[in-house]
């Protein structure tokens, strides 16, 4: 069946329908990872967005037991070509079936490079995937322009708290849309991880007397998470060590008077170089964010930049002064992507030990 991708600027790509055939409107973003399409699909940070994969051959190894959450989150999926024959020893099914089961509308067979170039030049924009051959641009374009992502954290966070048993330090993980591997990375280091819904009060967390608090990644515009930011302010004022990733990093900055802004087309992929300013070492990181912290808006007495993106100089992490708090914009938990910055979990472990 034919499918159409219609962009806010009026560009139309014609391809083949994959997954669900229902219409969808969303923000279109691109990801440059060459492997890890399943991890991308199941990363809750993609809630409220439709993802374009720049690598043209997707689905080669099918669906493996590597989901980063319980379901697929993107509103839509855009690829050049889906493999008809998945091949891998852990393959449990095809991506075609997966998209259908998960009810994700998508389009294949389009020039994803041309699409990526449009997004790069004009910035992230909204778009629609439809299988209706008689679509009416005049009717659709205003709808696309008015679409806003809105509150997505509440959609992706867990319903109630749960615990990953461990004999080491107790970590309270705030789930703003956490990828599984964050909890897993801590659990593998021996931590007992309690995962809390995003809207848990600071008091409840403090009362549980954790050795450390982990603020997770998550979707959407950080500045709209007003109530969460209020709770984080309270957490900041405790002496509990805090490590934050991605949305968590942005929220901590906002809680301390910093500002965030929307990047033109974001960072999504597994090849972004980040420099640790403490030793000038460069690590290749996994990234998925559309917003960034403006480090200059935070009082240097409170925090200073700890990591910077080598490509465009944007902030990639903050170190909070006089506090056991550090936050990063990228994803040390990888999945998908390079595991180079996994050492940050060790740093957090040391911090918790030191604070005890």
């Amino acid at each position: 069946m034919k499918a159409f991708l219609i962009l806010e600027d009026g560009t139309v790509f014609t391809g083949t329908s994959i997954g669900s055939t229902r219409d969808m409107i969303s923000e279109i973003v691109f990801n440059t990872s060459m492997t890890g399409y399943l991890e991308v699909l199941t990363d809750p940070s993609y809630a409220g967005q439709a993802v374009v994969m720049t690598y043209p051959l997707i689905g080669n190894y099918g669906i493996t037991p590597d989901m980063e959450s319980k379901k697929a989150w993107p509103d839509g999926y855009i690829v050049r070509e889906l493999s008809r024959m998945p091949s891998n020893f852990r393959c449990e099914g095809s991506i075609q079936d997966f998209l259908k089961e998960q009810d994700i509308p998508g389009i294949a067979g389009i020039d994803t490079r041309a699409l990526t170039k449009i997004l790069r030049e004009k910035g992230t924009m909204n778009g629609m995937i439809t299988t209706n051959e008689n679509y009416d641009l005049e009717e659709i374009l205003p709808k696309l322009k008015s679409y806003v992502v809105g509150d997505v954290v509440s959609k992706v966070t867990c319903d109630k708290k749960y615990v990953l048993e461990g004999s080491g330090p107790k970590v309270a993980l705030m789930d703003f849309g956490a990828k599984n591997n964050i909890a897993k990375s801590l659990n593998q280091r021996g931590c007992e991880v309690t995962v809390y819904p995003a809207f848990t009060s600071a008091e409840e967390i403090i009362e549980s007397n954790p050795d450390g608090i982990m603020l997770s990644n998550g979707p959407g515009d950080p500045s709209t998470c007003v109530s969460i930011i209020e709770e984080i302010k309270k957490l900041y004022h405790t002496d509990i060590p805090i490590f934050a990733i991605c949305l968590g990093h942005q929220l901590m900055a906002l809680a301390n008077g910093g500002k965030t802004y929307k990047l033109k087309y974001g960072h999504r992929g597994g090849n972004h170089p980040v420099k640790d300013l403490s030793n000038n070492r460069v690590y290749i990181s996994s990234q998925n964010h559309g917003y960034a912290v403006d480090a200059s808006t935070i009082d240097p007495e409170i925090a200073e930049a700890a990591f910077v993106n080598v490509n465009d100089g944007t902030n990639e992490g903050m170190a909070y002064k006089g506090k056991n708090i550090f936050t990063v914009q990228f994803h040390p938990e990888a999945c998908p992507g390079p595991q180079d910055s996994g050492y940050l979990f060790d740093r957090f472990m040391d911090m918790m030990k030191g604070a005890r």
Partner: protein
Amino acid sequence: MPRNKDIKKVLVIGSGPIVIGQAAEFDYAGTQACRSLKEEGLEVVLLNSNPATIMTDKDIADRVYIEPLTVEVVEQLILKEKPDSVLPTLGGQAALNLAMELEENGFLKRNNVRLIGTTSETIKKAEDRLEFKTTMEKIGEPCAASLVVETVEDGIRFAEEIGFPVVLRPAYTLGGSGGGIAHDRTQLVEILENGLRLSRVGQVLVERCIAGWKEIEYEVMRDSNGNCITVCNMENIDPVGVHTGDSIVVAPSQTLGDKEYQMLRTSALNIISELNITGGCNVQYALHPETFEYCVIEVNPRVSRSSALASKATGYPIAKVAAKIALGYTLDEIKNAVTKKTYASFEPMLDYCVVKIPRLPFDKFISAKRTLTTQMKATGEVMSICDNFEGALMKAIRSLEQHVDSLLSYDFSHLSREDLLEELAVVDDQRIWKIAEAIRRGISYDQIHEITKIDKWFIDKIAILVEMEQSLKACAPKVAAGNVGLDKELLKEAKRLEFPDNVIARLTGLDERKVHDLRHEYGITASYKMVDTCAAEFAAETPYYYSVFGSENEVAETSGKKKVLVLGSGPIRIGQGIEFDFCSVHCTWAFAKEGYETIIVNNNPETVSTDFDIADKLYFEPLTPEDVESIVDLEKPDGAVVQFGGQTAIKLTESLMKMGVPILGTSAENVDAAEDRELFDEILEKCGIPRPTGGTVFTAEEAKEVANRLGYPVLVRPSYVLGGQGMQIAINDHDIDEFIGIINRIAQDHPILVDKYLQGKEIEVDAVCDGEDILIPGIMEHIERAGIHSGDSISVYPAQSISEKTKRTIEDYTKKLAQSLHVIGLINIQFIVCGEDVYVIEVNPRSSRTVPYISKVTGIPIVPLATKVIIGSKIKDLGYTPGLQPEADYFAVKMPVFSFEKIRGADISLGPEMKSTGECLGIAKTFDEALYKAFLGAGIKLPKYKNMIMTVRDEDKEEAVEIGRRFEKIGYRIFATKGTAEALKAGGVKANAVNKIEQESPNLMDLILGHKIDLVIDTPPQGADRSRDGFVIRRNAIETGVNVLTAIDTAEALITSLENTDIKKLALIDIATI
């Protein structure tokens, strides 16, 4: 970290002559590195024995030494030039080994010279088998279990411990001879006994067999601050068991999930960090196809063939970055030269798929085994880029220049199902064609996978191509009934999968032109995408393109300058080597200097011409008429140059003219005139130039008639070939039958030439002609008499044994021929001189193999001169007096280099068909020293044990006595077969008669396997009927590392070089000051 200011003068060591396993990729890496060093204001001293390279140009380095790559030479060079640093990681294993020797013997330390790029500890840790194993164990990286054994009993014990099958690799044998896979105890004993006997040190490595696992490679970079990145990973379609150089390779990996990908990536970073490498490194893995288990196969602590491939596949200039790292820069300080915005500290992301196919030399070595093993056999490779795997595979296939254009090109339809299944188990260069046939027969993916161990994902991709063949075939009845028969959607899909028009035409029964027109009618044309390192995330400035169908075109606006299309020479193969890349690159630079916009089309990832900053635009595409036409349609060049790209480019002349592209330089009709026997004879007659008599034939019957008229021996060869492919000397009717049979096995559209064979001096000339005047930089003379291919002969400049009068005759003939053929640009002529008589045997109105050599030894840059002439300059205006230039006051010897030890079953005796893979140069004030250096450069470092074997044909016996006497005089003990020994004794030379192989021990074979023989001189009789005996002697000698000479003239040259030269007293010559 900023650059280390203590580094001011660097010695860069190249990789020497092109041999199998060490080819043009090191010219690419070396050239890029030298340019990168000069960019930093450093003084660069270059040492490489290979004159055909671009890196040995005086534009590339400040001081250029084309000298043998031996420890003695490097030591003398360091004492002479006093560099403060040596960069050894860009010249392959050859350079690395030299650096290690200098470090170990303390020379570098004594002379305060440091190794940059990597330390000797690092090299040792990576290269020494035991140290490597220990290091890997320390960081928990698994290697395949292995043990070096010296007895069969130890071998059995270890094999039983680790379990069968096991791989056996004898130490210090070449070409993997004596090795193999043993599946049980009986096989083990058999192989091991033989292997221990073949090994010079009596050692065999017994290793756990991981054949059938996936083979994956990672290219990694690391700087002195410890920052690491992977440039890309690659997956071999052929599982472990085939050398990666002989495998079809895809980048990035296709069948690895993120878990496997990151697991191996992390491992690669751990390894490069533990080895403390600063620069580039390649790590090869075997990955179990059904678990996460893996083994590290090998680590190369240097730039390699794989890194050249990775550079071209991603756009990331590994050699350039490695050179900057060697100077102390860190990755985040080095700009990404492709985007010019980001830095070298990132990982390239591909939004396309790359396929590499090796170019194997079985068309040259018909008797050789086609099977592929862990010993590399490929001479070169092609690469293609597309947005789908099927398309990339199809493009790579037609880039091979092997008369293949699709998965139908090798026909296995005659095989029974059983035979086909058996054939599938044979790992050779035709395996993907066999898989295609298996799919056509309905053999299941499971069964194919079971036999080949190739991942089903790849099998399915081949199936998609087979299904398209069938869909196209299904159109044939409609076409036959007079309908168009081919609908738009099907054609679109066929083109997306990169089916060429001629294949579509063949399958559907449509005319090729009709397919072409239909495409244009439907609007199905190629568009071009950019290789930008970042999957379009950042705007890139590098115009490096590949074609796809069904996408938007993104080729940048052109400059408005005049545009010239330079056609490259495709994969490196015997007969068409790196020399033509040298010519293409220099031509491109010369056009750029004249204000042209330059466009290169080529498909060889190993070369300098496909580096992204050589031309204004690079199209990485197959060199077929259709692929070139698509580029022409888009670029509309003002002209095309075909005379620098060897036969590959020449073959495109006619098609280019049909497209309306003017051919710059010598016109197509005149190229034809040189190849067309009758036209050419007319020209010769008009000029009064003699040639050996001969005739043009199509069949064996006609050939025999001509041969008998001329009288045997005769030379038989196809027209329109390079490298003497299919050329043979026939001494009787039987030979003719056999040779014509061989020639006709390869598709043959052109006639066959039969000429009287003249045994005289062979002379070669390259000249520039502007239509009126000519410029001959120098006359080259071959040491071997006519009958041995010019590419396989030792060539001497200036010519030694011909008279002044003959030289004038040659000059005169060259001028007349160039004028009559209206040559504008380069011409290459080969003559035979008998006494004072000069005969023309071959004329090529294009650049030749000897162009880089003669340019360098005379200091006359004939490619740029020819390019200027092509644009309209006259020789007189370029500062040269027309005619033969004055002779230099030193001697230069070009020596062919062979890779026979790598090709099992190949006959090594020389003849009119070219067999060498590369060349090296000897240059000196005396002829003997130049010759000595040339032999040394080719790896013939004598004497060692002062024992030699002679077995010569009857015609050579007289000369053999003289040669034997001279070898005896310098202390050689001569062993000879009965006839030769008798002749030697009769001439007063002491000779020990030995039994032939089939006779009882001790015989020749025992001598050779005693590992105490320096040299075998074995001149086989002419004609097709060559004895099996001689063949076995030559093969065994080569495989145990003994030097073998098969022409009496070569033997004479060798003894001449040995008589008066001392390795310690060589005078080194800086080519840049010539």
